[in-house]
């Protein structure tokens, strides 16, 4: 492998780690916020996240189905609606869980609250597996079911992923080749090693299409074995295979894949998450509400002596943490579309990793949760890329043990100091 390829591979691993790390961080923030105000681990938090993925999935399926559109061609506001619905659902659940499961136990021994949290978690995991219902009005086509249940589903591609930094290397008018699946370009094309090439062309509407039909942009992947130059007029094999007359005389451009592809979904995940984290940072450290949250976090009693409605602040904290989990839950299946049933081990592991992120960063510390999230993802991705994939989860929990041994209160946690 050349050095360029190795660097590219490193950078790609880094990008993947940052994308997944920002999702870990969003979920970790929920653990840390709740711990901050109530000093207990909300074990149902990862289930709120899973609820968010299923709500996104259900909303996406139902909305696109009702509107009779393909998810891939859904307008941008459908994704926005799905996002907001996921937030509303998770926030409502977060509120109710606090109000009806945890609040009655305020002042009860820690163990009772812990057991209740585990109970709520199991409840959500198992209720989430109840079979889905068919949406009656939509005629009962399989895609029209409300897809809760024990069967994994694929998240519709509401936002289609694409590589943002392809380079356009040629433009012109294309001709069909002598056999199906071959095309001819009107200029020379230089093929470099380790790159992929695709031809984008504008396909006019079919002759029998109804009036007003739009032309569409289609893609053909160039099948080449060797770097070198393809002369103008030389036949090029492409996938998928098209008839000569379909591509005859169409406008085309050739796009070369970058060494390090930057994908739309990754950019969306990273910018969205970081935006939310900055917003949270401002909320917690610069606003009156944030000051109230920090006051409650130090002492519920003293906070109430400042005239702070501590129950309202605690409720708000649950809603906030759940909304952040919902945001992560909306973004996650855009990258990994398979949505597993609510009690699946993959969710348990994901929740556990986010929890570990919160603990590694110092539970109760907002900046710590963000740091922990990125750290966990970095060690996970680089460990499995460069050392061994099997040990993927071992790195994460190894890091946890290491941090707990060296800095028991976490990287940014205040060293345990008893209240005076």
């Amino acid at each position, binding site marked *: 492998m050349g050095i360029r390829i190795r660097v590219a591979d490193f950078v790609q691993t880094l990008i993947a780690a940052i994308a997944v790390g920002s999702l870990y961080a969003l979920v970790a923030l929920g653990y840390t916020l709740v711990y901050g105000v109530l000093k207990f681990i909300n074990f149902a938090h990862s289930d709120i996240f899973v609820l968010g993925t299923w709500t996104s999935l259900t909303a996406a399926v139902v909305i696109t189905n009702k509107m009779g559109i393909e998810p891939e061609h859904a307008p941008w506001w459908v994704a926005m609606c799905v996002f907001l619905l996921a937030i509303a659902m998770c926030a409502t659940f977060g509120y109710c869980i606090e109000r009806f499961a945890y609040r009655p136990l305020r002042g009860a021994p820690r163990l009772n609250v812990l057991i209740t949290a585990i109970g709520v978690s199991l409840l959500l995991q198992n209720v989430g597996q109840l079979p889905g219902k068919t949406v009656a009005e939509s005629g009962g086509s399989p895609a029209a079911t409300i897809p809760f249940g024990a069967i994994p589903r694929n998240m519709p591609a509401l936002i289609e992923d694409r590589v943002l930094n392809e380079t356009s290397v040629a433009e012109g008018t294309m001709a069909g080749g002598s056999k199906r699946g071959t095309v001819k370009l009107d200029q020379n094309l230089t093929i470099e090693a380790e790159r992929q090439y695709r031809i984008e062309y504008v396909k006019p509407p079919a002759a029998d299409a109804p009036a007003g039909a739009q032309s569409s942009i289609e893609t053909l992947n160039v099948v080449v074995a060797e770097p070198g130059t393809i002369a103008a007029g030389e036949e090029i094999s492409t996938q998928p295979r098209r008839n000569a007359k379909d591509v005859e005389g169409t406008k085309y451009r050739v796009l070369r894949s970058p060494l390090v592809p930057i994908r739309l979904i990754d950019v969306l995940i990273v910018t969205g998450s970081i935006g939310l984290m900055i917003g949270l940072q401002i909320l917690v450290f610069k606003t*009156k509400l944030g000051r109230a949250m920090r006051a409650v976090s130090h002492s519920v009693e003293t906070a109430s*002596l*400042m*005239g702070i409605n501590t129950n309202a602040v605690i409720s708000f904290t649950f809603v906030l943490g759940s909304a952040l989990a919902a945001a992560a839950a909306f973004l996650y299946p855009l990258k990994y579309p398979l949505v597993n049933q609510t009690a699946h081990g993959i969710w348990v592991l994901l929740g556990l990793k986010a929890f570990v992120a919160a603990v590694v960063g110092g539970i109760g510390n907002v900046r710590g949760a963000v740091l922990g999230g990125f750290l966990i993802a970095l060690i996970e991705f680089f460990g499995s890329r460069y050392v061994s994939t099997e040990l993927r989860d071992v790195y994460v929990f190894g890091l946890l043990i290491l941090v707990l041994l060296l800095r028991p209160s976490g990287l940014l946690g205040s060293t345990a100091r008893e209240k005076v």
Partner: protein
Amino acid sequence: MSALLEVKDLVVKYGAIEALHGISLTVNQGEIVSLIGSNGAGKTTTLRAISGIRRAASGSIVFNGADISRQAAHAIVRSGLVQSPEGRGVFPNMTVAENLDLGAFIRNDHAEIAKDLERALGLFPRLRERMGQMAGTLSGGEQQMLAMARAMLTKPRLLLLDEPSLGLAPQIVQTIFKIIREINASGTTILLVEQNARMALQVSHRAYVLETGKIVNQGDAKELASSDVVRKAYLGH
């Protein structure tokens, strides 16, 4: 004189233990009243019950004409009854400025808050130099000043102070009591809990003596200070 706070037959329990066995006390508008007693007598418990942090098992607490014994702690603060808790209760991980802001949490009259802040910093010039410092890094005396300044910013009608002189050097104690007088002179009624009975009786108009959950003595502060029982038990001569 009209009663601002009237506590009647207050009983407070911690589990099976009864900490207050039915105490009654009155604080009139404009007064400084002190509640003195030895360790574990129930002074803090009384203040916690009045502030709504610990629920009364029975009895009534009437503030400004309304029974507040069932009200939430934050609502009691909003009605003008503010406590500066024992052990100062500043927020150590926040700056002095943020602590003071929290004192004004229930208020929205920004111009007035700015004036009151000036007034509080005038009384405690030490705090002005330390606005950006974490409260946890202040000295004990400075923390007590911060706690009092913070309570002033809430603009209370009735201020409950739980042992403001605890653990402070005699000089600072003098300052603290001087400021208690000034706060009172500017129109705030004060219920003061103290173990330093000598100082407390000096600044107070009236006083109550609490012993193991019962009021055992009460009256004019000067008279109590000269009474034999109080002198022996609390003034040490």
